[in-house]
Every structure is written in C-alpha cells, then in structure tokens.
C-alpha cells in the first residue's frame, strides 16, 4: 500500500509537471477514521498528499461525466476502470480526455463492518494481507481481512483494471467468482411471497436521500426520472410503493451497465443492500446476452443491440 501510495504521488507529480493533465483525481487521508477522501490534485504540491489504502472505495469514475475542461488523470481500481470504459462507450467522456492510472485491487474495507465488530466508531486499524487488528476502547480484536471487506469485493472477478494508461504494481490474482450468482440464487429460491416480504422489509427504512443514485457513476442524466412531474413516474414520498418504484428503476436502468462497484451500497446511510437488484440484472444480462459491463471499449451495451434469436419464452 505504502509503495502504491508513493508511486501514485510520483506519477501524479510527473503528469502535472509535464502538463499532460490538468488535474489528478485521487484520494487523500480522510478526516474521519476508515475513509479516504476523494480529492483533486492540480499542482505537484497537492499531488504530495495523495494516498492509497483499503479505504479508497469511492468510485472516482463518478466525477468524470460531470466535469468540463481538459484531460484529467484518475486512479482506478478494477471496477472503476470498467465504469470508465462504460462511460466512454456511452459517449459521456472521451477516452483521450482521461489518463487512467490503474491500481490492481485486493478489496476495500467496509467501514460499517469494522465499526460493527468494534462496537464503536473510534477505531484504529492495523492490517496486513490476511488480517485486520481493530483497536477500539482500549481493546484489540483480530479478524480475517475477508470478513471486513465490502460485499462486492469479496466475489469480485475483475480486480485488475481492464483499461488503463499506466498500471501501478503487479496484477493480482482474480477471485474465483460466482458469488453474484450464489447471492442471487438465494433470493430466487425463496417463494414469491417471501421474496416480496424480503424486499418490502429491506426498503422499509429507505429515506429517499438518493445517496445511492448520486454515488453511482452511471447516474449522469441531467434530469432524473424521479424529478419528472409531468408525468410523474415516481411519487415523492416514502410510501412503500414510491420507494420501490424508485429502486426498481434505479436498478433497471443500470442493467448491463453496472460493474458492481458497490458505490451505491457504501453511500447508503441506512445500510440498505441496494446491490441486491442490480446484481440480479447483472446475472440475467450475462446469462441471456453473454455480456459483462465495461470489459471492452468497443462493445455495444446489451440493450442497444439485439439478436434475432434472443430468448422470448415469456412472450405469448
């Protein structure tokens, strides 16, 4: 991690000095424990404060489509690089306008899990590649690293950046995968009424803050459908129907685009597992159309193409 941090600082300073980019999007140490904050480094001085650790979960691709101006460099994990590729495919950014500094990733730590284990928000962490020692309230707890990683990192099949201009450090081994399908299958196996109850309960605490939407790199529409008023597709309240309408379409319009980066889940203040719907769609898209988002720049998104022989058993 230390090595990667200094490499990032070095590369950022060089890119800025050579005026290859206007700014570098990266991370700096956060102001609260267990979160590194996204930052924009525009000078080599600012580049010196860049860091890399297991708290750099934020998907920086989110900042790209909203940006105007020239070329920027961006630090990208495997999932982030796929989001960037998706944004290029969807014509939201130009490939030549981003300089992608890829960082192979072995998982980001889930702050909520650490705090739950520690029973306190005041924690200090010491980690190596297998274990995490959590210090809180004068006590020390040792847990396996995999137990406190974000859910999406645990089954991640694309830890190495897929598009990049420069790669920092050596490529890492990909995880076995199949986790998404297993998680989806668990819900699929429930009887229909149970499934409904499950989602009804899951969304019952949603406060419609839209953090999940705003954190997602795919949500770049000028006007979101939830803000439409004529016609109004989705009521403004936290009535269960309004909440579910929001979540159904939030997930649905990520179909074939979501890279399971986990930004939505990480952003939710009430810890709703909003990836439950997007990963179902991810699984369907892969099974029905053999597509995984953001793996190739030239691939057309699955809803923008068709095959004459596409499955249609559900149509009378």
């Amino acid at each position, binding site marked *: 991690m230390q090595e990667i941090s200094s490499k990032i600082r070095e590369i950022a300073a060089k890119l800025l000095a050579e005026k290859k980019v206007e700014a570098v999007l990266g991370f700096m140490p956060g102001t609260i424990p267990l979160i590194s904050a996204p930052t924009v480094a525009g000078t080599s001085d600012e580049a010196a404060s860049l860091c890399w650790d297991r708290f750099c979960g934020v998907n920086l691709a989110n900042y790209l489509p909203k940006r105007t101006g020239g070329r920027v460099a961006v630090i990208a994990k495997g999932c982030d690089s796929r989001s960037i590729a998706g944004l290029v495919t969807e014509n939201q950014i130009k490939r030549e306008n981003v300089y992608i500094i890829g960082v192979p990733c072995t998982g980001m730590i889930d702050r909520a899990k650490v705090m739950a284990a520690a029973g306190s928000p005041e924690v200090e962490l010491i980690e190596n590649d297998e274990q995490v020692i959590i210090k809180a309230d004068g006590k020390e707890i040792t847990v396996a690293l995999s137990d406190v990683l974000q859910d999406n990192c645990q089954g991640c099949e694309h830890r190495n950046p897929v598009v990049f201009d420069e790669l920092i450090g050596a490529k890492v081994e990909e995880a076995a995968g199949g986790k998404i399908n297993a998680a989806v299958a668990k819900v699929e196996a429930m009887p229909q009424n149970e499934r409904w109850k499950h*989602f009804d309960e899951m969304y019952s605490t949603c406060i419609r803050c839209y953090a999940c939407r705003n954190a997602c790199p795919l949500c770049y529409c000028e006007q979101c459908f939830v803000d439409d008023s004529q016609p109004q*597709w989705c009521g403004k309240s936290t009535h269960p129907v309004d909440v579910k309408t929001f979540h159904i*379409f939030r997930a649905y319009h990520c179909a074939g685009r979501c890279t399971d980066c986990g930004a939505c889940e990480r952003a939710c203040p009430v810890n709703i597992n909003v990836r439950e719907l997007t990963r*179902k769609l991810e699984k369907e898209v892969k099974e029905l159309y053999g597509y995984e988002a953001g793996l190739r720049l030239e691939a057309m998104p699955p*809803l923008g193409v068709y095959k*004459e022989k*596409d499955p249609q058993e559900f*149509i009378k």
Partner: protein
Amino acid sequence: MADKKSEIRNPKSEIGNWQPKIIAFLCNWCSYAGADLAGVGRMQYPPNVRVIRIPCSGRMNPKFILAALRSGADGILVSGCHPGDCHYLSGNYFARRKFALFRSLLDYMGIEDGRIHFSWVSAAEGERFAEVISEVTEAVRAIGPSHRLNRKVMGRR
C-alpha cells in the same frame, strides 16, 4: 389478518364483484389492428381491457407498466408485431430485451406471475387477439387485485 385488512381497504373485493382492470399497450401497426379486426369480426372477449395505443412496441417504456399498476391497474399486457414484422424493422427486437430484463426483475422482487403479460399479435390475428385477452384476463382474475405496486392501496403489505 393481513387479508382482512386488504379487503377493508378494497371495498369492491369485499362485496365480491371485483373485476380485473387490465391495461393493454398495443402497437399501432399490428396488435391494435388485431384488436380492431376482432371487433369488426364481432369476436367475444372479456371487456376488462383498456387499450393504450403506442406507435411500436419499441416505444414501450417499462415506466408505463409501473405507472399503470401504481394507479390501480390489476394487469398489464404489452403487445407488438411478431419478430421480423415490426413496421420500424427492429423496434420489437430491442423491446424484447427490455421486457425480458424488466420481467425478471419484477419477478425477482415477488410481483405475482400473471400480473404482467407480453405477446406478439399481428394485424391479421383478430381471433388470436381475442384469445390472448381471455387468457390474460383469466390469469389476472386468478391472482386477484393488484396491491403490491398500487399507490392507491395505502399501507404496507
């Protein structure tokens, strides 16, 4: 208990004369003409559908489906031209992918089978149109009134 509550909130179902309301989104060039043909041919089919004409099944936005359910529809039918027959050549092929994913998402969330239907009906298939409507109406009747995404039914279910 839950059932009792839902009935109080739905006086119509309590008095037992509930009739399913079905919204049918029909493509102008085929299924809509098919419906016309069924009418001209005086074919009998259940009077439970309200038709909304769309220019092509490719125009169908899944938002329309939830908007209908939200305002109290009990069932939905979306019908377009057979593959290869779309007036705009490929609208229904794109639509098919959208429908497949939307359907499986709703199914995953626990929306009842038989709530939402899709079909291909051509302008020449008046009889088939009548059959499809009967089939859809029976399926919706069998599962009862729609509550799960109905904004008019208050409270949690």
